[in-house]
């Protein structure tokens, strides 16, 4: 199959296409109706991963590739996961020492003008 390349009924694409629009709209709404706190994060991440998932799986045809290729491409980013995890801790750590020894920032933000 791989030889004739990836051929799939068009309406698969149409459906995903629509779906992406909806999801983007939702994630936009998260900001528009100004959800805050943990819920905001959950929603943002959920919509983000759904969108990313569909693009990779359908538009980039990963769904129809063989498991070998899937694994080879999707596993290495685990290392990035470790980096993100540790860098988040590190950022927090740096921030703490700053607050403790240099005190709160004295920056006075300006209003955004349109």
């Amino acid at each position: 199959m791989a030889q004739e390349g990836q051929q799939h009924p068009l309406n698969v694409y149409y459906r995903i296409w629509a779906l992406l629009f909806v999801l983007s709209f939702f994630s936009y709404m998260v900001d528009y109706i100004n959800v805050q706190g943990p819920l905001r994060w959950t929603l943002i991440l959920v919509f983000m991963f759904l969108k990313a998932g569909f693009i990779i799986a359908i538009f980039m045809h990963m769904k129809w590739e063989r498991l070998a290729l899937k694994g080879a491409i999707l596993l290495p980013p685990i290392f990035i996961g470790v980096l993100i995890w540790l860098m988040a801790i590190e950022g927090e750590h740096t921030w703490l020492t700053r607050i403790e020894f240099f005190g709160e920032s004295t920056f006075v933000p300006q209003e955004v003008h349109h």
Partner: protein
Amino acid sequence: MSEAAATNAEVLPDGARGVVRDFSSDMQSFHVPWGKAMMWIFLLSDTFIFSCFLVGYMHVRMAATDPWPYPSEVFALSFGGDPIPLILIAIMTFILITSSGTMALAVNMGYRKDRKKTFWLMVATALLGASFVGMQAFEWTKLIVEEGVRPWGNPMGAAQFGSAFFMITGFHGMHVSAGVIYLLVVANRVRNGFYEKRGGNYEIVEIAGLYWHFVDLVWVFIFAFFYLW
């Protein structure tokens, strides 16, 4: 392209056994053309690039003691009335998704050897991409001229806001622009039958498509982490 691919037409096992089978086979491990395999590996490498950019952004943002400007205000846009948060970004997002759709269709048409449709769909994709870059340019100028955001500082808060914004969106914008050129080149060759001479093989369209979808993919993350956080 690779005849090797054409030779093993026998049905392959799936799942874990498939993986073992593929990696223990001779000649080739992935049942995809070379160009596609290479593009996938390149995209993996590129993923690491963008991830590092975003990790850097996350770190400086978390470490910043100065207040972080509130994106949904900074990027709000007002048409006469009171400003609508992130509206331009939303539009850009929809444009990019649309372009992904047209691209996906182009790939499909390519495999159907429908050169005309493929060509026009690819051109449409490129145009959408170009308009995305255009809007980005508009967004940048607005930010620089009206909000006074500079790479080295801004009136609303931590200097890293501008630094990270211009760097990340700039790098993404360069990817889009490169993609537009790439698409147009391939589209043109589809039109003038360049690939017919090479055994009417249109994987190249899918390869270009992979790149384009990746650019869209990156935007999904930028949108979430930079604009919505």
